[in-house]
């Protein structure tokens, strides 16, 4: 009996070895080459593949977060080339805060696509959306799931995205989140002699940690500011913004009002009279003016830049400042010497609370962009909100606003101000003000009035509030968004 050397075929699937090897090789090649093929397919699928596009961004001059958006755009150019197969380059235009809206509006009013992407201020959403100058983003977000992002809190949506307030219309996406934080000289707080002197003078320990300041009230912080207020040594307790320029004094007075239960208008009826000119708000104005005693001479002209100057030059122990300029506040010389904490609460005991003003800016898209520029603008936004881009933005000193980045365990450690920023970005601790198209006009009246009181041109806080409330309601009434002003308004003046 001879044994067959050919094994009988087993029942079922039988593959010859050669074919098996061929298949395995093909599978391996396909696996290794899949990303490349997919990318090729993606590039082929992109309608702009092979084209060169020139984009322009309008941003805020001298504003670090805005310039970060600009500085990072070459990274998008690399990404777009690799992912979509088109070349993109960027040009940039900029103007200071107070002039940016004017620059944008005069261009958009002529239906120009001079600026394809604009870094707007949050309060301008209404003024840009109402005439149809910027794109409503609801459909774009629905069509691009990458833009349907979970934000850190609802105030992100209310501040940077939504207009009108309470509606579901979205017009912007956050470029930079921002809140007010308290910058303090940690090295002074850590000085045992200072701690001892403070304890002896006030019978309480000198607040030194983030947690200490989280629980601190303005009355308690006043003791700290007074302790370090030494004009004879050219050192002052703190610095706030009182400048008449743009929204500077308003943003810093609102926390005094809101935190103590005051309000500024009724967004549903447009009424301002009887709401802004309240006893609480009048008292808040007096309180803010009283704080001038702990600030350097000329504080009534202080804006963002002036506060950076006095803090970095060691003229003040502390400063209320936007988290967005943390990089400018903490110079290399001050590294490790600054504590950034939540700003104090207003009021006493259980009733004490803090409601500070939101800062930050959204991206908005020019409605007159042609298809190609609109497509690139959307691609740019999709790239901007990729986790690795958001993280890179934070590493460079920016403040992302998406939940994934802010909830990352390492986020707090990236920058000294990140923890305070995140703390203040929580619902109820910060809020924005009007997004109405008449924002600029209402703001101008208010800045004049608040500045008149803070500089001593007027000592009648309620009189100033009457003037502002009447003027603002008249502005809204003129466009049919508020009832006519009551008779008490006739003849009010600063």
């Amino acid at each position, binding site marked *: 009996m001879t044994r067959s050397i050919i094994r009988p075929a087993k029942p079922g699937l039988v593959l010859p070895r050669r074919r098996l090897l061929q298949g395995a090789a093909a599978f391996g090649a396909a696996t290794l080459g899949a990303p490349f093929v997919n990318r090729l397919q993606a590039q082929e699928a992109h309608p702009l593949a092979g084209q060169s596009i020139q984009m322009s961004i309008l941003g805020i001059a001298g504003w670090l977060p805005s310039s970060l958006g600009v500085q990072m755009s070459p990274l998008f150019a690399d990404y777009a080339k690799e992912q979509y197969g088109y070349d993109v380059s960027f040009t940039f235009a900029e103007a200071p805060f*107070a002039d940016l*809206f*004017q620059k944008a*509006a*005069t261009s958009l*009013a002529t239906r120009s696509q001079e600026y394809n992407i604009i870094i707007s201020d949050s309060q301008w959403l209404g*003024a*840009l959306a*109402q*005439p*149809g100058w910027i794109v409503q983003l609801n459909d774009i977000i629905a069509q691009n799931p990458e833009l349907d992002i979970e934000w850190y809190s609802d105030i992100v949506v209310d501040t940077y995205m939504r207009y009108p307030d309470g509606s579901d219309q979205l017009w912007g996406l956050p470029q930079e989140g921002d809140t007010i934080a308290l910058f303090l000289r940690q090295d002074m707080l850590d000085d045992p002699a200072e701690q001892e002197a403070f304890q002896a003078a006030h019978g309480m320990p000198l607040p030194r940690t983030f947690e200490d300041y989280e629980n601190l009230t303005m009355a308690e912080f006043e003791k700290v500011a007074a302790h370090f207020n030494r004009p004879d040594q050219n050192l002052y307790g703190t610095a706030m913004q009182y400048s*008449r*320029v743009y929204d500077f004094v308003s943003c810093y007075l609102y926390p005094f009002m809101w935190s103590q239960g005051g309000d500024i208008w009724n967004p549903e009826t447009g009424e301002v009279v009887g709401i802004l000119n309240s006893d609480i708000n009048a008292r808040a104005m007096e309180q803010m003016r009283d704080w001038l005693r702990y600030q*350097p*001479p*000329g*504080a*009534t*002209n202080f804006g963002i830049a002036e506060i950076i*100057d*006095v803090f970095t030059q060691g*003229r003040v122990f502390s400063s209320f400042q936007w988290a967005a300029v943390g990089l400018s506040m903490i110079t290399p010389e001050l590294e490790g010497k600054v504590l950034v904490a939540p700003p104090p609460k207003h009021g006493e005991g259980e009733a004490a609370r803090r409601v500070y003003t939101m800062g930050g800016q959204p991206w908005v898209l020019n409605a007159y962009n042609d298809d190609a520029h609109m497509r690139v603008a959307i691609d740019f936004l999709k790239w901007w909100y990729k986790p690795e881009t958001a993280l890179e933005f934070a590493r460079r000193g920016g403040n992302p606003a998406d939940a994934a980045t802010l909830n990352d365990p390492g986020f707090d450690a990236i920058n000294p101000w990140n923890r305070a920023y995140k703390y203040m970005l929580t619902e109820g601790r910060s809020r924005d003000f009007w997004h109405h*198209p*008449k924002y*600029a*006009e209402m703001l*101008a009246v208010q*800045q*004049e*009035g608040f*500045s*008149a*009181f*803070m*500089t*001593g*041109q*007027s000592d009648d806080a309620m009189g100033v509030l009457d003037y502002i409330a009447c*003027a603002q309601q*008249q502005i809204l009434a*003129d*466009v049919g968004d508020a009832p006519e002003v009551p008779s008490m308004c006739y003849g009010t*003046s*600063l």
Partner: protein
Amino acid sequence: MAALADTAALPPPRRRADSHRGLVFVLLAPVLAFFVVFNTIPLLWLLGLSFHSFSLTSGQPPEFVGFRNYVQLWMGRNNFWGDLQRTFTFVGVGVTIQTLLGVGLGLLFWGSRTMPGRRLALTLLFAPMVLTPVATGTFFRFIYDPNFGALNQILLGLGLPMVDFLGNPRTAFWAVLAVDCWMWTPFMILMTLAALGSVPRAELEAAEIDRLPFRKRFTLVILHHGKFILMLGILLRTIDSFKTLDLIIPMTKGGPGQQTRLVAVELNKQAFESFNMGFSSAYAVYLLLVSIAMTSIFIFVLNLRRRRG
């Protein structure tokens, strides 16, 4: 002779007169076109817009509101009368100081023609006038700064207290006015030198020979011949000062409160910050009327000599 008389009696050749008129029209046409396109049409547009409610940010077309914008201004909306009063103070005080200083310094320069370095001194003196007001305003803001400004460092060095020149409502207006005077006094020096140049040398020499005291020489000779050039200088400064905007924006933005808010500052704000095109047009028409009134007064004064003659 008769032939000559016949020729003299003939009317001038019509064709020549017509071609001359045609040439005049051709030469004037570019200027007229420029005037119509850049002056008349915008002015009419402005006038039309002033009867409308139109905000650039509303997304709505202009709405005809009749005289509402004018009435609101007349009733003092946005503190119009306060701004106007402040502007008149700024113009009146500023131009007076500039004229007095300008005439005084001009006379000194006129009398120092042999002084070495006179040309250099004059060039340096005229430098503020050629600087852009925005740049001037910006560096004076730094000079006035209470924390880092040079002026306060000097005050401190002299043992004087620090002054917040631009933040204090009592000093801000005068601090801005001082910069305006620093900037524009050289212009009045220039006009004074031009006026002195128009005085006949013989009359000046005769006054010297007669040993007229300086006061009489100034009033009877110099002012008699030079007053019209000086008046022209004052007129130009008044009109220019009435429009002051670019100096104030970088210095105070009209603050503190409304202390340095002149009419041009408010007009700029209404038009290009608030985008209230209708209201700001009415504002501009009011200012135009005020400017026309002021110019008419000056032209009347300038023409007095001819009328008396």
